[in-house]
């Protein structure tokens, strides 16, 4: 098979798998549970809007430093962890892998197709909930163009986060039989702790690059006390952050494809 044919086969496989799993993922009860979980920030946005009536200047700070904590350090991590590890693990646990790997599909195509389907589902859940909470909180200035640009930036940060975390968890799922626990330790242990380390240390976490891309920064010496998200952040430049996140996504996804192609997955009796 020539390189051109291989690429065509990979592309066809990925698109077919994408379409199949996007439908399967959408119908899953677990997707509904995670989508409902995403409504929590929306409810909180309503509460903030009511409580902070007339304190418009604080709303942006509250959004970045409170609601974005929920989105960035909890919601997308949990979503990516579940869907990312599912890409391989659900086929093994459910013993449905033979249906996939005995079809004329390339194995990298299966991984990338499922990754794309689940990433899109997650991105939709995140974007819808982000949009609702963001515009509810900023409902008093819907006429400002900058509002929409900022929203796009928030959505972009979360989208990049979904891609990078999911790629990491797909890789874990391809390597390990029980990736979920290692993933939990990474997502809620390593990522939670290392981001507050000074200097270059924090650059060993994905969340560092995501936080570096956030549009809002509290004024230095400001009176905001809700700075958990940006606490001790020594930001990397946006270009480097985007490149790093893209490279992490691409490399981990490629590794996951390579492992999935080479490894035999046996069902536990």
């Amino acid at each position, binding site marked *: 098979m020539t390189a051109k044919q291989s690429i065509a086969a990979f592309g066809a496989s990925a698109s077919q798998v994408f379409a199949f799993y996007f439908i399967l993922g959408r119908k899953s009860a*677990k997707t509904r549970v995670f989508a409902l*979980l995403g409504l929590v920030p929306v409810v909180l946005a309503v509460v903030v809007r009511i409580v902070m009536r007339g304190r418009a200047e604080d709303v942006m700070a*509250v959004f970045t430093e409170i*609601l974005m904590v929920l989105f960035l350090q*909890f919601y997308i991590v949990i979503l990516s962890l579940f869907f990312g590890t599912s890409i391989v693990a*659900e086929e093994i*646990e459910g013993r449905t892998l033979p249906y996939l790997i005995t079809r004329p599909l390339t194995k990298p195509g299966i991984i990338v197709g499922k990754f794309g389907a689940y990433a899109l589902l997650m991105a939709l859940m995140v974007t819808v909930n982000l949009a609702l909470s963001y515009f509810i909180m900023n409902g008093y200035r819907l006429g400002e163009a900058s509002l929409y640009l900022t929203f796009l930036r928030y959505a972009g940060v979360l989208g990049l986060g979904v891609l990078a975390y999911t790629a990491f968890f797909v890789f874990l799922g391809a390597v390990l039989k029980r990736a*979920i*626990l*290692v993933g939990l330790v990474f997502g809620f242990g390593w990522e939670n702790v290392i981001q507050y380390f000074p200097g270059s240390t924090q650059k060993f976490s994905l969340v560092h690059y995501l936080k570096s891309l956030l549009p809002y920064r509290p004024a230095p010496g400001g009176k905001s006390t809700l700075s958990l998200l940006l606490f001790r952040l020594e930001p990397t430049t946006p270009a480097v952050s985007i490149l790093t996140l893209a490279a992490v996504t691409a490399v981990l996804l490629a590794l996951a494809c390579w492992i999935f192609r080479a490894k035999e997955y046996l069902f536990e009796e």
Partner: protein
Amino acid sequence: MAATVRAKGYAHWDGRPVDRRFPWWPITRMGIQLAFRKKRFKLAFAMSFAPAFVFLAGLYISERLEDFQAFFRGSDRLLNITPDYFKIYLTNDSLHFLIVLVLAFAGAGLVADDLKHNSLQLYFARPLRKKDYLLGKMSVVAFFVLIVTALPGLVLLLFKLVFAGSFKFFLDYPWLPLSILGYAALLTVFFAFYILLLSSLSKNSRYVTILVFMTFFFSSILHGILYGIFRLPALALVSIPANLQQTGASLFGQKLPHAFPAVWSFLVLAAACAVSGLVINRKIRSVEVVK
């Protein structure tokens, strides 16, 4: 003479069924054994004793402060061992994280795997009642919670006395062993209901593992957010770790971390257990109804 039944090859069993005092024990034993069969569980289990070793080192240093003056100048207060030291060990976030980690390994599949393999009917086809089944499963949780809380807690107390070379500390705080056991018991009861509730909500133990972590830490994040908005101490009631810390401080007779009566946290945890009990009772059925 007519042949006896035995002579024909049959033998009536003349014994009496043994009334097992602990019919749940085989379930517990199996649950513990299954947990230890998981390779990475052993690592997580060993890790859960790390805080105990750190606190043990602290105890040693507190008795040998003169040897460590250069390191701890002006930090005498830190190593002044009081019941607060034991409370900090049992209620600190890292121990909670490790307990949740160990239980996610050992407990997520307790009911979920039985539901997945439709094996509840196998349990209930034996002389086993629902309460025996639940007790067996809860005892697995109890085993792991007690072994990483009560056991190190009491051992730390023992080492404190050994390092000090006197019983003065014990005589000063004779109720401390009871506090350690009381808080460990509270953690046990709460986590037993918590884990069994989540494990009974799905057939997929991977999903349950996520639920175990998600619920625990989400409640804490939610508390942080709500407190950030409203600045009301009582909002700590939505957080599982905060309620555990509040009740822990109360049981050790220490200053409460949140400005509301500890009884509120006791009530919240009791209510959570009661609701969990109701849901578990509904979910555990010997016959699976296919919709």
